[in-house]
């Protein structure tokens, strides 16, 4: 089974200009899956809503080529990859729109595994060493998964190009947790059965709580690459994402100082452990500094929340600073509603998790948002510029940008390979002990593990039309 191609042709009773410019305006499911493009130009990110037998999937794509009034080529990024080429042709009484969609075998595999039936473990050959990645390619934070997967692929290819691990080829197994703990539990079972030597996780802390018992029971080295809220060391679980929540107070101090009015703070986040811990941190920072918290809202994951109502609530609360710990599409939908209401100039927004893929979907609606990150595109470390050029060379200039959520995955895979080589060479007794003392000079600078985690420097950044701009370094998060 290889890829498939679908051809669809539709007559539109509208002139060419109207038909063409309606693309990406979120018209409805019948016009390329309710595609929404903040800009209609090459490289622009699109988000899509796919009706799938009673449930809806949110998906992302990108405009690869655009010839005005003639052709739009889009590439799907999540949950499946593929390309759709749209051609517009004026005919009497309207326009013909022809869509040629080409989907690779991997897209069919994704459907097969996620919609149809659970994946089954694959066997690992004797001349291979398997490593796993659990990330989100669908669900609330599905759109981060493509850059995450790319970063893992890049690391694996680099490792194999320089001789693999102890003379064996490194094999990557990527599993989608669908941004759910159920999906994560399924994924870790598959990885254990596949006999991976270690795995990397880039998913919510909710999924981590499903993975953790299996990691403890099997003593599988598991490198959690998302920002985390835990302090204690925990067996073979290593935390690489940095503890952003402990820098929120210094970030708030900076923002409050610039408000020019008595601060009135509104807290919003998703309802699970990481956002709750982050907002608790913000709330106690406010209490210590005697700052007024005028409102708080927690929204469930995958809830199709009416953010316009929440924006109204924020306006009525008289807030002048919003602290958001929303993730994924909830964050995108909230920031769009906030920006559409024209609040960006009057109310300062701090989002604890603003990565480049989120910003891509927001476009100008995201400009002005503040955040705390351990990585951003222009980070001036010696390793970053060469990393970015290797990434662009491998995946193309119009691939989803690496971010604070995907770069730690790249570093984690390299840490695993380095530790596995030490074990193979007999200089370390076992993989977990080797990872526990792991060090790497990566795109985020020197990453060194201590007590089961690393605490890279955290930066206060602001979203601009040209990406995240550094405001100031907040120091290491330990």
């Amino acid at each position, binding site marked *: 089974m290889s890829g498939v191609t*679908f051809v669809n042709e539709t007559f539109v009773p509208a002139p060419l200009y109207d038909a*063409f410019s309606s693309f990406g305006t979120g018209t409805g*499911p019948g016009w390329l899956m309710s595609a929404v493009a903040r800009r209609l*130009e090459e490289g622009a990110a699109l988000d899509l809503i796919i009706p799938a037998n009673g449930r809806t999937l949110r998906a992302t794509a990108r405009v690869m080529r655009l010839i*005005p009034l003639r052709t739009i080529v889009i590439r799907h990024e999540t949950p499946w990859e593929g390309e759709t080429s749209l051609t517009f042709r004026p005919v009497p009484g309207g326009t013909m729109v022809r869509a040629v969609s080409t989907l690779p075998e991997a897209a069919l595999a994704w459907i097969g595994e996620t919609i*149809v*039936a659970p994946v089954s473990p694959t066997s690992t050959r004797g001349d291979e060493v398997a490593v796993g990645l659990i990330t989100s390619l669908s669900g609330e934070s599905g759109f981060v998964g493509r850059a995450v997967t790319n970063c893992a692929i890049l690391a694996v290819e680099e490792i194999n190009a320089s001789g693999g691990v102890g003379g064996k080829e490194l094999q990557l197994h990527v599993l989608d947790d669908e941004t759910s703990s159920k999906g994560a539990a399924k994924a870790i079972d598959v990885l254990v059965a596949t006999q991976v030597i270690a795995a990397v996780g880039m998913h919510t802390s909710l999924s981590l709580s499903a993975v953790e018992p299996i990691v403890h029971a099997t003593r599988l080295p598991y490198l959690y690459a998302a920002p985390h809220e835990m302090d204690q060391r925990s067996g073979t679980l290593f935390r690489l994402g940095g503890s952003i929540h402990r820098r929120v107070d210094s970030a708030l101090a900076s923002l409050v100082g610039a408000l020019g009015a008595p601060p009135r703070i509104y807290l919003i986040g998703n309802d699970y452990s990481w956002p709750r811990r982050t907002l608790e941190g913000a709330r106690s920072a406010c209490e210590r500094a005697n700052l007024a918290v005028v409102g708080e809202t927690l929204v469930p994951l995958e809830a199709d929340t009416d953010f316009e109502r929440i924006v109204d609530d924020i306006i009525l609360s008289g807030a002048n600073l919003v602290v958001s710990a929303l993730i994924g599409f909830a964050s995108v939908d909230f920031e769009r509603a906030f920006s559409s209401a024209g609040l960006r100039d009057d109310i300062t927004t701090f989002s604890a998790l603003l990565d480049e893929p989120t910003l891509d979907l927001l476009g100008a609606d995201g400009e002005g948002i503040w955040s705390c990150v351990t990585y951003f595109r222009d980070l001036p470390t010696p390793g970053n510029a060469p990393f970015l050029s290797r990434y662009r060379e491998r995946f193309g200039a119009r691939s989803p940008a690496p971010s604070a959520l995907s770069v730690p995955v790249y570093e984690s895979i390299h840490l695993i390979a380095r530790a596995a080589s030490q074990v193979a060479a007999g200089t370390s007794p076992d993989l977990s002990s080797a990872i526990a003392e792991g060090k790497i000079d990566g795109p985020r600078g020197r990453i060194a593990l201590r007590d089961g985690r690393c605490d890279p420097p955290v930066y206060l950044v602001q979203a601009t039309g040209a990406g995240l701009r550094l405001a100031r370094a907040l120091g290491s998060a330990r």
Partner: protein
Amino acid sequence: MDEVEQEDVVFRCLTDPTRRTILLLLGTAGTLSVSEITEHFPTVGRTAISAHLRVLREAGLVTEQKSGRRRLYELGPNRASFAIEFLRQVYASSFEEAGTPARRGRPSLERQRDAQRFARRRVQ
């Protein structure tokens, strides 16, 4: 049955929403008995569900196993065809209203600028 005929059977199977839902149920649950499947369809009788299951079985989309007096169903060997068919339908329904002007929401500032840009191009 050759490949084309087989694909056609799969296609006909999936045009029915009840049959699509049965496949999704089995995809999530793994194995289900006829009564368990019927419970998910309060408005469809057991005889109708059995008929749907027979169609799905003939298309190779589900397989049946007997366990005592119960008949248990799980997804069959043709799940790859299901994936293709699923995507075919997703894409086919994605262009039914191509070119329809926006009905909801305010376009972003950038889209308003784009519209002006294309309008200028049209005048030239």
